[in-house]
């Protein structure tokens, strides 16, 4: 049905889009009760009368979740409302225990902000933030039989573990003027949110587990006629594509929707304002509920809760805890560390940024830190199929290891053995070196004896060196290293050989 490509659509039309991102907060407990907020437990084991919506149960606001929401709002440059009431959003659905969701409606805690998004080529785009509000998640339905949807299922199972998990929903203002870069901007925006919530430490930001989920609103409008400005052209009818749960999918969903809508418009058919669902298998969207027959949520202020009223002084205190914008921090660090673009991209992809920063902070050079984390440690992490951060080695230990090399106590080869010991839990690098006896032999008398023994075993070598064939010393160095099980300082061995031969290196 789509007869156009994304690129063609962008030539014909001006795209307008907006994104709603739901961030699941990583608070210890749920939004309105004391149940554990953890992903992956047995179904319906993290529930209580409150999050099951049993008769008589009442919600109590999780203050930690409010703190996370306020910090996120501050990171997004939002104003923080002095008093915001929760509201009830009423609709019937089996996964919604109370058949209403506690959310914020006309009084979001965070409003009117903006977020800079840095594109791959360094272009910075400012995205207007309309609001970031606090709400609770619903449970999870699993439809068994049929096509896996609710229609035609044999039966459905509901897991309320997710019901009541704290969410912040971030809503952008309409984003215009991005043209063909729309998909890239959409992707980069969500990536920035994901990076920021991780940097803030308020969410694990795992899109694959649904802890960051995006809904993409997109519409197309004609390009302006001659003498007219694009701003004079009214917005077209939009679609809202729900639950686009990976960065790649966001880009693809924008491509698909733009092409689909352009195809309709060019064929003289209307775009229906509706909710659509993204399908990862077919890389396409299908219609859900039409907005025209959309439910009336009958919002009204939640009478069971007091308003959220963050004290001014507390907000200012929290402002001091907001980390630097992730993309801007990356740019600054790349400059400071002197990494090439490709090197930096690998570091980011490996999630090694903070590990490297901490290793540098512990007293080593940027290149040495990168060498360890992106080299040997990445290899080990890859073998063990774990994240770098999950390896049993601290940035401080890595810095210590490098320090041992720099001071000449060990060489690169010994350092790898020492690291092996650290990863095996044998202690700090210094402890492993001591316990395993890995320190390089720097005692000259021992080295001199080893050199003399090697020269005696290969009497012709000395003559060759004296004839000017200095490279012949390599054979003796090798023999000495072998005799000292690699613990000799090769440079010093060479010096001794040349001394014995009576020539200067």
């Amino acid at each position, binding site marked *: 049905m789509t007869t156009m490509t994304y690129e063609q659509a962008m030539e014909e039309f001006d795209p307008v889009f907006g994104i709603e991102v739901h961030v699941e907060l990583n608070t210890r407990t749920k939004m309105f009760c004391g149940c554990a907020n953890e992903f992956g437990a047995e179904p319906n084991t993290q529930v209580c009368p409150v999050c099951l919506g*049993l008769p008589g149960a*009442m919600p109590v606001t999780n203050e930690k979740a409010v703190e996370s929401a306020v910090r996120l709002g501050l990171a997004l440059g939002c104003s923080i409302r002095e008093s915001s009431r929760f509201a009830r959003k009423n609709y019937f659905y089996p996964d919604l*225990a109370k058949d209403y969701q506690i959310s914020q409606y006309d009084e979001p805690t965070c409003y009117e902000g903006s977020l800079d998004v840095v594109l791959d080529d360094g272009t910075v785009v400012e995205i207007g933030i309309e609001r970031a509000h606090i709400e609770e998640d619903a449970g999870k339905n699993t439809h068994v039989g049929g096509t896996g949807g609710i229609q035609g299922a044999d039966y459905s199972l509901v897991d309320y573990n997710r019901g009541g998990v704290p969410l912040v929903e971030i809503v952008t203002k309409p984003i215009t003027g991005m043209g063909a870069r729309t998909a890239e901007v959409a992707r980069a925006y969500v990536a920035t949110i994901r990076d920021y919530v991780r940097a803030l430490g308020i969410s694990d930001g795992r899109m694959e587990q649904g802890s960051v989920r995006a809904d993409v609103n997109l519409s197309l409008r004609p390009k302006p006629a001659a003498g007219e400005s694009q701003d004079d052209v009214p917005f077209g009818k939009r679609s809202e594509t729900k639950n686009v749960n990976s960065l790649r999918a966001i880009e693809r969903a924008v491509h698909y929707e733009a092409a689909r809508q352009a195809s309709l418009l060019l064929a003289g058919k209307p775009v229906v304002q509706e909710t659509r669902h993204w399908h990862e298998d077919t890389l396409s969207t299908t219609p859900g509920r039409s907005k025209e027959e959309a439910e009336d949520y*009958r919002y009204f202020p939640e*009478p069971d809760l007091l308003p959220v009223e963050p004290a001014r002084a507390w907000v200012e205190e929290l402002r001091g805890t907001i980390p630097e914008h992730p993309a801007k921090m990356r740019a600054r660090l790349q400059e400071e560390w002197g990494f090439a673009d490709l090197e930096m991209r690998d570091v980011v992809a490996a999630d090694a940024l903070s590990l490297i920063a901490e290793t540098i902070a512990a007293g080593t050079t940027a290149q040495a830190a990168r060498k360890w984390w992106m080299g040997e440690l990445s290899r080990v992490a890859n073998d063990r199929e774990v994240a770098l951060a999950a390896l049993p080695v601290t940035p401080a230990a890595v810095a210590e290891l490098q320090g041992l090399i720099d001071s000449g106590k060990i060489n690169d080869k010994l350092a790898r053995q020492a690291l092996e010991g650290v990863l095996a839990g044998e202690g700090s690098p210094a402890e492993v070196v001591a316990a395993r006896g890995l320190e390089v032999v720097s005692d000259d008398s021992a080295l001199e004896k080893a050199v003399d023994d090697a020269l005696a075993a290969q009497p012709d070598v000395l003559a060759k060196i004296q004839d000017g064939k200095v490279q012949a010393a390599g054979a003796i160095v090798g023999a000495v290293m072998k005799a000292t099980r690699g613990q000799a300082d090769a440079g010093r061995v060479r010096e001794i050989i040349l001394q014995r031969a009576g020539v200067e290196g």
Partner: protein
Amino acid sequence: MTTTDWTRATAARMADALAAGEVTSVELTQAHLDRIGQIDGPVHAFLHIDAEGALATARAVDEDRAAGKELPRLAGVPIAVKDVLVTQGLPTTAGSRILEGWMPPYDATVTRKIREARMPILGKTNMDEFAMGSSTEHSGYGPTRNPWDLDRIPGGSGGGSAAALAAFEAPLAIGSDTGGSIRQPASVTGTVGVKPTYGGVSRFGAIALASSLDQLGPCGRTVMDTALLHEVMGGHDVNDATSLPEPVPGCVDAALVGARMDLTGVRIGVVKELSGVDGGFQDGVKQRFDESLERLRGMGAEVVEVSCPSFEYALAAYYVILPSEASSNLAKFDSVRFGLRVEKDTVEKTMLATRAEGFGDEVKRRIILGTYALSAGYYDAYYGSAQKVRTLVQRDFAAAFEQCDVLVSPTTPTTPFKIGERVDDPMAMYLNDIATIPANLAGIPGMSLPAGLAPEDGLPAGFQILAPAHEDARLYRIGAALEASLTADWGGPLTAQAPEVTA
């Protein structure tokens, strides 16, 4: 040796007798269970009786007392609990068929406090379905009858609790008051009931009708008994975000002070709009009110008239706010997790069929009203306007309380009417609560206590006292003073004059 009929005693007397070893909790509890067995058939105050559980609590209290352990004041005194409160291990239905057989897996905060006070729970009392009604005729399990006249209503929604007190089936009971559901039943059964300041008693575990109006409260046959129970129930609760942070007001001390019958310096305001001057109040009700006012004046109180012009709109605002909140609160009864399920081929049809079958007419009426009032395009005209009226009512009270310490009125316009008389006329039913509703809209505390029997029909008339928020103690002082004056003439509580219920 004469046998004492312990069911006729006050809760305070029972507590003293238990402490003095005159009687055991098992004896007290059994006496009430026997009484329930004899007369609850016709009265139908109880939906569920827990003889075994009540006696187990009683036995444990008796053992601890014998062992010399320190016990709470009301330990061993039995109590009846309105079925709106969830009770772990005891069925809880809120008077609705949709919850028939539901066994709550947890205790309400007030249930927990009653258990901690070591009071044997006799059972769960009947009520209008989800507390919607003023007669208990809207119970899904049949009406409760007024012990004064079994053909008449015991008030509602807490008719079961009030009837249990008036019929001597329990000395104390828990009620809930959204628009008068404690005070109006107290009024028409000749008993005492208090709606505390909003937030004064935790709502956690009370099945919600209208969250911004609901308040649990104590019911008894005397002001002192009610004060004793109030202090057991009240106080801050971390599980109820709207519960007040301050400790329970000194209700018992205030009742003791009041019983001295000295009201010198107390200013009592008569609300013009609720005094029956405009008609609509039964003559005998008005007469008993005026006589009570005279008694208060006689004890040194100054009586002033105040006007609360916005009260005219209170009933209308109430019947927008209540159904709106109720329509949302009752959405959870969808068959998915608990209660009735009428199985159909899709989840939507199952939900619809369950709610169609499980809810009664009055509940459906209010859900429809509330759903409509909250709908897009109507919200401002209905819910928004009603909230403005609410603010006006609060301002009227604030202005009135600048002129006086408490406000008074008849609790209800009439003595109890006949069962069936108004069940098909919702407006007539709603008008019952004209004098009680403003307190809920403003969140202030109110008490109803007996003012006597209306001469024309010999049925109880109630006297209502309202105090500013947080000043619940004033109700007990004024109430105890009036009660002391009246009972001195009556020779005992009004309920002693009730005819014997015959099965």
